[in-house]
Every structure is written in C-alpha cells, then in structure tokens.
C-alpha cells in the first residue's frame, strides 16, 4: 500500500519547515488553496485527503478503522512516516482535524513543533451542566439523515442496494462530485466519528505548543469552547477572530494567514 497514493498526498516546496494541512469533515485538501500561497516560499507544505475523502483511495477505506478519530490520526502518522518526516512539523487542522492533530501529537509528540487549530472543539455534544458542545444527540442524527438525502441521488435510492457491500466503492462512482467527500459510507462514518467524538479527557496529554483559533460567531462551535480548550491544553494560545461561520480559512483567508504567521514568529515560551 502506497500511503502517498492512498491519501492523495501532495508536497509543495523543497525547503523550509514543514506545514502539514489537515482538512475538516465534508472537505478535502482544496480547502487550503487560499492559505498555501502565503507560505510557498518559506515552507515545505504537505496536503492530503483522509481515506474516504477527496481523491483518496476509497478501496483503503475500512469502516472499523475510521469509525474513531484514532484511525484518521493514524493517517497523519502514516503520511509523516511515508515522507520520512521526523520532527518540527507545523500542523494546521480545521474543525475535527484539530482533534485529530491533537491525538496524533499525543501519539508521537516528537513529530510536531506547533499545532494550529482552526475552529476546534473536543466534543460537539452537550454534556450538561459543565460542558455545552452545542448539540444534542438528535441534532446529529438529523444531520446524518440530511447527509443521506443530499449525498445519495434519488436515482440511487431506487437502485438496488449491493448486498453485503460495505465499502461503498461500487456506489460511489455514480455519486455527484459536488461534495468534497463523495463516498456516502465513508462520509457517514466520518460524520459519526466527528460529531460523536469526545476528546475532552485527551486534552491533558497534549504537550505540543498550540494555537486555538476561535471564530467569534461560529454556528458549530460556541465561543466558550475556545476558552475551555485554552484552559485545558498546556502551552496553548487562544486567538478569537471576528468571523461569522466555521470556515475562516475559506471566507477570510487573510485573517488565518496573519494569525499563523504571527504565531509562528512568536517564541513558544512567550505565550
């Protein structure tokens, strides 16, 4: 299995510190196209798609492995090893990839020098009274149902279901490519892994310095979550950006670029 093909890995630039970009749920590596030009002369940039997303090898999708975020964290570690990256990696992750990056850094702390977390949340679900992730179980079940309706064209609803086929590989070819993630089984698996994850207890194990970028009006991640993370992650810095939405790297790339550049130029011990 060639990891670089499996994860559709692209490396831009020859020299400089490595920035590894990890896309969020529902997205793929193209989402970083407004960020990467700013670092093309200073950094070696690595982009990839998680197995099941983008142009990854859907044949490598394993429902068991990718049912939890650890499976996605393993994708990141696999890629680092395949590229022979040993240390000083700057990890930039959006949304669920912030959690995935945290897990990867806990597993192999020596690989990473800094983590940039855009719109992170350790848990989407409400766990009253101490933690309000923003969503109830039913909201997330409704989301999966919405995904069903949007992902699978009506023609596919009427088409016979391939019995016993769990990879979804046979179905995916016929699906609309309007979404970044095109495989319904992989997308639903990723959705469940993302929205039902609870990584709050992992935060104490993070040692790598990190920057938490919190959108001020994020309909997915309540403002208080940024404070929660800052409080629970050692060596973390919190930056609240005045952006509505959850995808500042797309809607306001200049803000994200500036935040990253400022963070990278600040010595760790000053934070």
């Amino acid at each position, binding site marked *: 299995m060639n990891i670089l093909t499996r994860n559709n890995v692209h490396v831009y630039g020859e020299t400089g510190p490595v920035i590894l970009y990890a896309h*969020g*749920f*529902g*997205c793929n590596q*193209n*989402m970083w196209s407004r960020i990467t030009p700013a670092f093309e002369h200073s950094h070696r940039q690595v982009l990839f798609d998680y197995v099941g997303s983008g142009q990854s090898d859907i044949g490598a999708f394993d429902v068991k492995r990718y049912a939890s975020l650890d499976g996605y964290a393993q994708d990141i570690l696999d890629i680092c090893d395949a590229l022979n990256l040993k240390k000083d990696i700057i990890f930039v992750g959006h*949304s669920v990839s912030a959690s995935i990056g945290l897990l990867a850094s806990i597993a192999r702390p020596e690989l990473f020098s800094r983590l940039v977390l855009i719109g992170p949340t350790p848990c989407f679900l409400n766990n009253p009274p101490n933690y309000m992730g*923003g*969503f*109830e179980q039913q*909201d*997330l*079940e*409704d*989301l999966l*149902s*919405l*995904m*069903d*309706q*949007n992902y699978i064209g*009506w023609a596919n*609803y*009427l088409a016979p*279901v391939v*019995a*016993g086929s769990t990879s979804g590989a046979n179905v995916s070819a016929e699906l609309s490519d*309007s*979404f*970044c993630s095109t495989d319904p089984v992989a997308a639903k698996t990723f959705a469940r892994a993302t*929205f039902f994850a609870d990584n709050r207890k992992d935060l104490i194990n993070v040692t790598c310095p990190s920057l938490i970028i919190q959108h001020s*009006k*994020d*309909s*997915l991640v309540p403002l208080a979550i940024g404070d929660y993370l800052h409080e629970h992650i050692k060596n973390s810095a919190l930056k609240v950006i005045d*952006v*509505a*939405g*959850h*995808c500042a790297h*797309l*809607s306001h790339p200049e803000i994200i670029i500036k935040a990253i550049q400022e963070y990278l130029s600040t010595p760790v011990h000053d934070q």
Partner: protein
Amino acid sequence: MDIFNQLPCPVLITESDGTVQAANLPLLNLLGKSQSDIVHKNMDELMPLASRIFMQTHVFPMLLRDGNLQEIYLKLNGKDNLKIPILLNCTSGIFEGRDSYFWILFVSQERSKFEQELLVARKRTEIANFELAKREHFIKTITDTVPGLVAYWDKELTCRFANKVYLEWFGKSPESILGTQLSDLLGAQLFAANEPYVRAALTGEPQNFERTITKADGSLGHTLASYIPDENEDGEVVGFFVLVSDVTSIKSVQTELKLAASVFDNTLEGIMITDINGSIISVNPAFTQITGYSAEESIGQNPRILKSNHHKPEFYAMLWRDIATQGQWRGEIWNRRKNGEAFLEWQTITTIRGDNDEPIRYVSVFNDITTRWQKDERIRHLAFHDALTELPNRTLLMERLNQLIAATSRKPNNLALLFLDLDGFKSINDNLGHDIGDEVLVIVAQKIQAQIRASDTVARLGGDEFIVLLSYPIDAEESAHIANRIINTINQPMEFSGLLVDVGVSVGIVMFPDDGHLPVQLMKRADEAMYQAKAAGRNQYYFYKHS
C-alpha cells in the same frame, strides 16, 4: 422590490458570511416573521441545528469554492415549530454594492413526504439487506466449513452456487464458476457419465452414486455424490443441490482393510486377538484349524481354554513380564487342542496400543510346529540311539557314563559296567540271514532290558556287542547276579516261524571305582574281561582281573 416579492418562491439575500440582507414576502410568510425579525441576523438562525451543521460543513465550503450550488436539501424553522423541508439553490453576486449570495428556496413539503417515505423504505431495505448479507455470510461460512463439495445447479445446468471445497476441487474462482455450464465444468466424458443422474434429479428423483474424478491437481479422487432436486412452490423442479463427499481416504482405508482382512482370513498362521482383560475378540480360520475351536466357541473365552500342563506357572509369569516390559513375547509354547491333544506352537504375542499409548489389545500369532518338533526329536533320538534296537548308542552311553562318574565326586557310589558279546551270532547271520539276525538282536535287547531297572542303561555298541551300565549296584555279587540273569534269559531259545534259534552271551564285568576311574579305561577293561569269559568257554561272565 415588487418583482422580488411577487416571485412565486421564497428568496433570500445574504452577505458572504450568511448575514441576512433581505428576504421576500413568500419567505417571510413561510417563516411567519417580518423583515426586521431576520435582517442582520445570520441565516443559520432560520434553520434547525442539523441543517446549520450541514451549512457549515458542506454548503459554505462548496459555495466558497464554486460560488454556486443547486438542490441542496435542508430544513427551515417554520411557524409553530414546524420544520419545513426545502431545496436550496444559490449563486453569488453583488447586492447593494457588497459580495452577496442569492438563495432561491423551493418548499418541497409534498415531495419531501414521498422522499421521506422512500428514505424509510431504503433504510428498511438496507437493514434487510444487511441481515440477508449476514445470513448469506453465515450460510457461506457453514458451506465453506463443510469438508464436502456443495453446489447448486439450475435446470439450465448453470452453476448458481459453489462452496470453497467445490471451487478448490475444480480449481475455479468464485467469479469464474458462477454461470458456468455443468458440461463445461465436468468435461464431455464425465458429463456424459453424470447426465443420467442429472436428468433423473431434474425429474424430481434424488440421486446417490459413486464416482472417480480427476481433480484439478491431476490426482484421482473417489466421490460419493448426491443430487437433491429443488422444487418451487408449484412443485416444479427448478434446479438441484449437489453434495459430494470426497471419500478418497475412506476408499484407500477400505482397500487396506480389505487387504488386511484377506490376510487375516487366508494366512496359515493362527491369529487370536484379545482385549486387555484377555477376553478373545477375534480369531481367524487358521486358529480354528489348528486348535479345533470355532470362532463362535472362542470369542468371549479366555485363552486359558488352550492351556496345557506342559509349563509351570513361572513360565507364564515370565511370558507376561516380557509383554509388560517389551510389549512382546515370542517363543515356543505347548497348548492343548479341543480334542485334548497337546501341540507345540511358535507364538508371537504383541501389544496393540491406543491413541493414548495405553495397551488395548493383545494379538497372538502362532504356527503349529508339533510335526516339525517331532521330526526334530526323531533326529535327536537317532543321534543317540541305535536305529535297530532303539537302545542308546555308544555316544549316549559314554555321556551317561561320564555323568555317572561325575556324580560320584559329589556322592561316592559303585558302578558296574557289563560288556556283552553274543556267542554264535555270526552263524545265525550266515545261516538264517540278516533279517533273522536283526530280529534276534531286537529280542536280545528286549530281554536284557527286562532284567534291569529303569535307571540302568542298556546300550548297543554295534554288531552283537551290548553294554549294560548298572548305576547303583550294591557290590560285585549283585552285578554277577544280574549278569547271570541276563545270560539265562538270552539262552532261552527264540522261535522264528517254527524255527528255534539259540544264542549265548559272554559278559566281561568291571567295577568302578575299583577297576578304573576313566570311562575309556573302564570300557577297555570290560572288553578284556569279556574276551577272558569267551576264552574260558563262552556263555559266562568274567570279572576284570588286574594282570
């Protein structure tokens, strides 16, 4: 704005981050809100949470990438907490001088209801399919675990199912065998052989038959095949199940068993098998022939029925000790036939061990060597006896003499050796013939034996010379007395077909230890005494005198 409000579907204009700039009347009516309720708020707030997440994870990334989208299915929060299903189209543009998105909404209440039903139906199908797949997997696991061949052929003789063993037997992959014609798979020859069974199965008659097939690896396999017709609800045969057991190993075991059984039945060796408690389980025909006991008479009995009284308990104890320590005993043993006759057998007793190495059977294989033993005995007898008179010969005589002399060193004793030579025997031979001469010798031998004890020895040296060895004579007088008796009895005339024959005997006597200590010396001196008896006038005895 009039046109905006008169459009037949809800329309929304937002800034690029989703902040509402304007909404037309159809939308406001749908939501049950006024323009001021929603302007400057984020359009997210018009939606249930699930739709918000979808907006953030799918809709905005797509819009930001492509600038437009079509037919996205979402829900709006309507009046009275109703969730209104909508289809969403969007394109970017400039509104009031700002980058904006124009959203066209289609309320798809009716359509959504059907779609919802379809969705439920699909979910049910998915669950049913999953269960079906699970069941199929279960059945496949079972059929693949079965060591036999399992397949299904429809009535067009197309393969519809084949288990792992079936595939391996024919060297096919699961993909390549499905849809294969039976005639192609079996080849013309085998197909022709099987076709009658196939046809019969397709008429609803189950078939069972044996077949030898060449496997994909070239080896020959023996199979036991069953064709089981498959009927539909109307009783029409739509195909048949094939169950084939590979009985190659059973066949070869069977062949070996047959061979072993044939050896068991036809060998000349008697074979007796007992269980560990010594109860007879099986005997072969040779056993019956040798012992006289039939299988019915023997089975269940203890081999003691064969026991003779030839051996002491120690012999049997040793035999069993050998079996216990070495697993085997072989040797000669005297047994007794059903008719009471003792017979000698050369026997091998072997322990058969079970899977756990514990003894479970004893197998006794034996030959009847009685006849051979008798011949051997005869040869042995002839080596030490005179063929004519059956008396011990010189060799045996000298051996006994040696033994007796040796015994006197432990227990001092007298011995007497009488050297006999018939008088007038040569003329009997010459006048009456050797046959009469031989008969005379035999009668003389019997006469001498009648005069002595069983422990004494009479030997014939050859010709008309005999030796009498008296083991325990009290003194010379007793020896002289016995010599006299022998002379008298030999002097009695013998009758041969009305012809009376007289014969005399001269006897020389030596005493041990007085007249010599060595056998040869004693023989020589007895001979000298015998000649002195002859010289003194024959038909008398004479004691050896030192000269």
